[in-house]
């Protein structure tokens, strides 16, 4: 280590008041093994290499996993009454008291090991517990919170009853039934339009002031910042793993207070190899997720959550490029926000917006969703369906909520709704994470069908006891939740059939459809068709204007066509809801020809 490096580390220590060892590790100036060796000499305790002298599994399993992860120790051996404990921290009175409570009044001898070795020993020993906890943790706590059962018996009965009744009615009186169906569809579109426009109108207001200003961020003292955990689930993305490390290195947050957990699937040897080859600094740790179905992102996140030590926690996808000050803004939001603020969501947008028509449309949609709609929901204190990444949590509350549902393929939206249902609030911060927009239609439909399927799963979960939901969050938030999470799949599904009817009428000039459109429904449909499409297009235009993506404004005119893609994805989602409800349609990243800005 050069004098310059040491000076840098010491300067950082003065600012953060963190242990120098952790800082040297986070800056990548020392190897973990060497550091803990040195610490063992400093603490005058012998070093133990747990890979050569593994801990006693039975002894290890006698203690709670969470306690050992939190307190950074594992019992290694027990000889008579004497217990040898390996620690990755200097033993102090607090640790002694913890051990006394956990092991009883037994004599303890300490040995030093690395935190990696402790985590590894725990993962090896508690492999099945980790799998069970990550997969069924939420289900065991409260089965009704989990999408493990797609339909409850009563829901299934209602669904079958409704289908049978509809078919029967259709046989007896086809025209009235079709008219009622048409009315229902028209009303669904109308509610969706009115709701989204009203919420967006409110959501557009905060842009008049910066919710969290640069001054707020500057006022934060490094030594006062908490430990922040970043979870990055990676699967079959060996080519971009280097990129995520580069992107995260841009974060303006003391490295010694940043714990980056790269969640790697056990069977994904290529990505594991690529991650190791990247030689990340010491504040980056790899968490190997045991290989067992369901192989979903939420399950990997749940495993990661076991090893997260940060007061706050955020999820980034592998291709994400967050604004450097995002973590600090999140800290400000949590400190200034109410005690029940469980999560803040940053906006998502795309760095490859201009790559092709699909990326343009995706950017238009995301700009609207994250810059207008979600801030509007936040301002109106309505449930926010979280986006897939860049959601920052208070780790403790996240654990209390039961974390992510591995059986829900939009675990984020589900978690946002669950937080609201449990009396917590979800907010927004004025910071952006740039991602890679899908460039291929097939890949887009896979991703979108998963999201829509997840929205349907979430709807079914929360409609198991609608009255309870209303009691928990109130009538208006429940209606808002239904309009957004349930209404979105419905309107997407109906888009193609309605367009098909329209084109048929336009091309053939047929009057056969007239009976389906009595005056009131005709006017409603015309309003939806003209005003709805106009407003959807217009909101997209405004959203990208706000983002200063002026070149995209004209592309907003293609919004009605883009809706057709949604409809196709929604059809696929419905099919999968019945055939493969938990199947995770993996989005392939790294397809863009546009390089992420450095």
């Amino acid at each position, binding site marked *: 280590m050069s004098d310059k490096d040491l000076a840098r580390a010491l300067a950082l220590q003065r600012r953060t008041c963190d242990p120098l060892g952790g800082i040297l590790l986070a800056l990548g100036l020392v190897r973990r093994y060497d550091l803990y060796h040195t610490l063992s000499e400093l603490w005058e305790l012998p070093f133990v290499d747990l890979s050569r002298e593994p801990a006693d599994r039975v002894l290890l399993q006698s203690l709670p996993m969470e306690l050992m992860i939190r307190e950074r120790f594992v019992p290694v051996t027990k000889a008579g009454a004497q217990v040898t404990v390996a620690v990755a921290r200097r033993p102090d009175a607090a640790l002694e008291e913890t051990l006394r409570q956990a092991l009883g009044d037994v004599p303890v001898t300490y040995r030093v090991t690395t935190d990696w070795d402790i985590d590894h020993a725990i993962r090896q020993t508690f492999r099945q517990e980790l799998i069970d906890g990550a997969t069924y943790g939420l289900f065991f706590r409260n089965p009704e919170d989990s999408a493990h059962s797609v339909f409850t018996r009563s829901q299934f009965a209602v669904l079958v009853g409704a289908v049978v009744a509809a078919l029967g009615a259709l046989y007896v009186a086809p025209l009235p039934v079709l008219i009622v169906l048409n009315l229902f569809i028209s009303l669904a579109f109308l509610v969706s339009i009115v709701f989204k426009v009203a919420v967006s109108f409110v959501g557009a*207001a905060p842009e008049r002031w910066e919710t969290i200003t640069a001054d707020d961020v500057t006022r934060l003292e490094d030594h006062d910042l908490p430990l922040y955990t970043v979870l990055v689930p990676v699967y079959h993305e060996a080519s971009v793993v280097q990129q995520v490390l580069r992107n995260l290195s841009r974060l303006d947050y003391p490295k010694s207070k940043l714990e980056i957990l790269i969640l790697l699937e056990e069977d994904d040897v290529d990505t594991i190899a690529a991650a190791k080859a990247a030689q990340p600094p010491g504040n980056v740790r790899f968490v190997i997720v045991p290989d067992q179905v369901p192989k979903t992102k939420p399950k990997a996140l749940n495993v990661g959550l076991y090893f997260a030590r940060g007061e706050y926690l955020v999820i980034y996808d592998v291709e994400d490029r967050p604004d450097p000050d995002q973590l600090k803004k999140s800290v400000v939001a949590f400190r200034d926000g109410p005690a029940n603020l469980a999560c803040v969501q940053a906006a998502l947008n795309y760095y490859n917006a201009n790559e092709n028509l699909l990326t343009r449309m995706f950017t238009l949609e995301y700009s609207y969703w994250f810059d207008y709609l979600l801030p509007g929901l936040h301002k109106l204190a309505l449930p926010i369906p979280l986006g897939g990444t860049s959601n920052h949590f208070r780790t403790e509350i996240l654990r209390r909520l039961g974390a992510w549902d591995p059986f829900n393929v939009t675990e984020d939206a589900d978690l946002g709704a669950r937080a609201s249902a449990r009396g917590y609030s979800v907010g927004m911060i004025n910071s952006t994470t740039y991602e890679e927009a899908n460039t291929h239609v097939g890949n887009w439909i896979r991703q979108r069908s998963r999201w829509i399927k997840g929205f349907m799963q979430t709807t079914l979960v929360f409609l198991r006891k609608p009255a309870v939901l209303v009691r928990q969050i109130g009538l208006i938030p429940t209606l808002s939740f239904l309009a957004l999470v349930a209404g979105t799949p419905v309107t997407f599904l109906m888009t193609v059939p309605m367009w098909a009817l329209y084109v048929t009428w336009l091309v053939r000039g047929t009057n056969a459809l007239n009976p389906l459109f009595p*005056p009131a429904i005709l*006017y409603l449909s015309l309003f939806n068709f003209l005003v709805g499409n106009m407003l959807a297009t217009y909101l997209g235009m405004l959203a990208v204007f706000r983002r200063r993506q002026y070149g995209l404004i004209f592309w907003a005119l293609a919004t009605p066509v883009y809706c057709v893609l949604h409809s196709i994805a929604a059809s696929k989602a419905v099919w999968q809801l019945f055939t493969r409800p938990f199947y995770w349609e993996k989005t392939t990243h790294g397809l863009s020809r546009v390089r992420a800005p450095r």
Partner: protein
Amino acid sequence: MASAASARRAELRQNPTAGPLAAAGVFFFLAAALTYRADVSLWLSHHHAHVIEKALLVLDRGRLELIGFFYPPLPFLLMLSWPSPVFAGLLAAGCGAGLVWILTRELSCLPFPRPASFGLLLGLATPTTFFLFTQSLWEALLLVLLVVARTQCVEFVSRGNTRALFIAGLALGLAFLANYYVLLFTLPYAFTMLLFVRTTRRGAGVAAAFVLVFPMVATILGWMYLSWVFTGEPLAFTRDPASSMFAFLKPDGADLPTGWSAALRATAHDVRMAPVYMVVAVVVAWYRPFRLLTLVVCAVFVLVLRTFGFVFPDYLATVTFTVVALASLPPRTPRQLWPLLLVTALLQFGLGWALPLRGEPAAWQNAVTSGEVTPEDREETAIGQSLNQRPARSVLIDDRVGYRIIARAGTARPFLTPVDGLYALAVSQPARFVPSMLAPVGRAHVVEAAGQSPAGAHPGLRLTRAWSTWCLYESTTSRATLGPQIR
């Protein structure tokens, strides 16, 4: 760095004071009282009669697409909930109150004593303004929507708030449904975007202009589409006889004064009637010369419209000039100018009350001040009231000339009009299809342009009642009872 004026403006926008609300309330109260007075006096403007009649037809027939023949639709749609002269007047008064509210908030930003700022509104407290904001809903809507759009454009340009751009665009789009003159008045807004919207990225101005005009373009295309769906012709609404759109192309509009000199004379007269406009123009030219464009463009547009034969009534011109002038006063207008501006507003107030009005506003003023209306007004009311209990579709009438009668009747149920499928047949053989027929005196046709033979020549019809302007023919046989069965 925001200026003190813009900071005050921002503060006012976020924390509206009681003053603007009180001013708006006073205006609404006065306009409502005048509406009531006009209604009691049996006075009804042509425009309101037209809109009310269309709303009554739609409510009775249950088919909204009847408006495929009608422009402008926004006043009509608003009237559907309660098609009556009072409601039309109240809606117009609401527009006026909204306008006053916005203007008062704007004027509050001036560095004048608060009473002086509010006093400038006296320039608008004239009979022409009250006529417009009680008897001309479409023009009232146009003005208030234009002012909303302007305010929001300023907000957007000065603070970059895209919600303001959103509202401005929608206001202009809606304004097209109230009055097509907005097409012309949108140009300066779009031009402002091109000139003043600057960011670090290229294309901001063009993008902002595009976003601003998009709702209006979409509205036009949407209305053309509806017109095509319901009438088979996308531009059918431009040929609505009651609409003044392209009036100069129609035989009826042939007598409209056109040409530069006539238009110039008329416009100069209207400018003279708005001294506030002239004085503010001088103030603006002195302190913020670039803003003068807004004021000049406004007068030029009126001139151009009139030159090409479009109808731009003098009362609308005067009120428009005054509103534009008050909205254009720079927030940094020197404080010492308030006496000059206040005296000018008082002068305009005096002129507005002292000089006689012309045309429809004059008749309205007479009705609300002395309670006197023309015999035709009383007659229309009497005819309407005498027919409104008749059976459905029993009275043949061409609502293109008889819309006032239907509006006075308060129901379209007894009348068989061109929107009814049987109308053409009934016109050809009235006695066979309807028990009665109402035709204007001197024309003796139900449809003037249809080239029908005089009603009296129809076998089976006889004149049963004649007023000074209308004749009622009744069937001499009992066969003409198909009307009620039409439904």
